[in-house]
């Protein structure tokens, strides 16, 4: 943002991103190997110190104040960063790989940001307004940075070449058995072996962040609990997201709504309109459940599109629970509105004449079975659609991974990524349509149960 010191923002951005990356990495590793997490953070801290002091030195140097302060800064920097690194390695007994990973993170981020800048893929303001200035002044900082990065990579290679040091140790940790299982399953680079093992249906799944967390911390009880109950966890995440959006939108409701409130109100109102067309004026009483079902299922379905997340509806457990809630709700309102006798009469097919009573032994089981089939069909439809769509994407990702494994990267990635993106668009459509169908069918079932005019009743019987 500061025009006087251009070049600062890209460095700041890179440092900020690298802090986030380091924290995420450390959090992933932490429960199983706290020492490695600490090493990553220490490396990141040292690299951060390195960059901030380097910036200070360059600033002092270009301003022409080449006095004692500059020399002191340089000495302090060298002592702090390189001395710190040396001390950590020799005294602290830290493993090289996490330390080097932590130390290389800011370099990597700076490198990536520079590539982004060069390709013009950065934010519009960055490329349009500041690109030339930033690139010019970045030259000063980037040259030593790249030099140090190369030095770091060379050092890492040198260390790994030594027999019996860190990297070999790391490779042994990486459990080749699970990796082979993943390859056999068609998901070498992306799908982890664990994902296949934990799935009861025997079909592959893309690993989500819980599975990855579990792979890194196999022994941790909390992590393995989360991993075992991932459907619930992702359902919770979706629920929290849903609550957060509704709370944010309706925190301070205004007569003339802002854009956010407007968007949410539009969604809710159009859904209410669609259901109201079926249910009539009674929609006011039932929309809380139906609307909640729609938006909750929509949130869960859409969550699966984000990499590392999973649609909780691709498990029959969750969809069956939702369908049973709908079923009990519909039956409750049926009994409430029709009364016990009216409800039984409805189940018997409303016999009014001799033929009706004669057909009773046939009609009653048919109607009861029809009622019981509703939750089954509701849950299986949602589960099958979402799961099928997920499986389709897994198959294509797995094929891509196999091609990458056969080192056909150039052949594999662009068309495969295109096909997968196409299927993801289809997944978006499926998510919306399935959420809509679930809630609309719930509305229809409710409509069949509620008392209405004679012709509507006949219609309801035809649909059975």
């Amino acid at each position, binding site marked *: 943002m500061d025009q006087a010191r251009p070049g600062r923002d890209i460095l700041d951005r890179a440092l900020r991103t690298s802090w986030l990356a380091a924290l995420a990495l450390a959090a992933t590793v932490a429960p199983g190997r706290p020492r490695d997490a600490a090493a990553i953070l220490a490396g990141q801290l040292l690299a951060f110190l390195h960059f901030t002091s380097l910036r200070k030195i360059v600033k002092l140097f270009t301003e022409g104040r080449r006095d004692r302060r500059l020399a002191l800064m340089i000495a302090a920097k060298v002592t702090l960063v390189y001395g710190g690194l040396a001390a950590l390695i020799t005294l602290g007994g830290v493993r090289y790989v996490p330390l080097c990973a932590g130390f290389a993170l800011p370099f990597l981020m700076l490198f990536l940001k520079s590539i982004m800048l060069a390709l013009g893929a950065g934010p519009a303001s960055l490329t349009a307004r500041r690109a030339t200035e930033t690139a010019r002044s970045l030259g000063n900082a980037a040259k030593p940075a790249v030099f140090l990065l190369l030095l770091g990579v060379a050092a890492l290679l040198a260390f790994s070449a030594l027999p019996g040091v860190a990297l070999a140790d790391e490779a042994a940790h990486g459990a080749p058995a699970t990796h082979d299982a993943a390859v056999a399953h068609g998901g070498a680079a992306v799908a982890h072996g664990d994902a296949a093992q934990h799935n009861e*249906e*025997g079909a592959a799944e893309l690993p989500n962040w819980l599975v990855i967390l579990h792979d890194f911390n196999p022994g941790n009880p909390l992590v393995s609990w989360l991993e075992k109950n991932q459907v619930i966890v992702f359902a919770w995440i979706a629920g929290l997201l849903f609550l957060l959006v509704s709370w944010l939108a309706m925190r301070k409701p205004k007569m003339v709504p802002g854009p956010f409130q407007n968007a949410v109100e539009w969604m809710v109102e159009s859904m209410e309109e669609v259901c109201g*067309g079926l249910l009539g004026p009674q929609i006011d009483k039932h929309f809380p459940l139906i609307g909640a079902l729609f938006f909750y299922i929509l949130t869960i379905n859409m969550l699966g599109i984000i990499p590392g997340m999973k649609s909780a509806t691709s498990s029959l457990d969750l969809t069956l629970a939702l369908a049973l809630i709908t079923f009990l709700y519909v039956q409750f309102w049926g009994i409430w509105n029709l009364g016990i006798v009216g409800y039984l009469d409805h189940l018997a097919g409303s016999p009014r004449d001799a033929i009706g009573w004669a057909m009773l032994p046939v009609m009653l089981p048919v109607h009861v079975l029809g009622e019981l089939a509703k939750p089954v*069909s509701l849950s*299986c*439809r949602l*589960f*099958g659609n979402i799961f*099928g769509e997920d499986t389709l994407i897994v198959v294509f990702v797995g094929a891509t991974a196999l091609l990458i494994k056969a080192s056909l990267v150039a052949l594999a990635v662009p068309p495969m990524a295109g096909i997968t993106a196409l299927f993801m668009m289809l997944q978006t459509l499926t998510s919306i*349509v399935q959420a809509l169908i679930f809630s609309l069918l719930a509305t229809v079932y409710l409509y069949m149960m509620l008392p209405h005019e004679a012709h509507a009743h006949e219609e309801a019987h035809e649909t059975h």
Partner: protein
Amino acid sequence: MLFPAALGLGLPLGIGLAAIGSGIGIGFLGKGAMEAMGRQPEILPKLQVAMIIGFGFAEALTIYAFVTMFFLQGRIG
């Protein structure tokens, strides 16, 4: 015929047959809806809702076959 072999032949065939049925059903629905839309464009919103519900019912049949396949897939061997 061995049970796994029978499953391996039967499951994909079953899905295909179910898909034929669903496809015919959805096709008829879509045809009817399109014709109605062309004749009376003003009923579009109501028509769409009914059409999507119909699609849901027709599609469910294939989904049942699909779910059956997933439950039995592990036993192909």
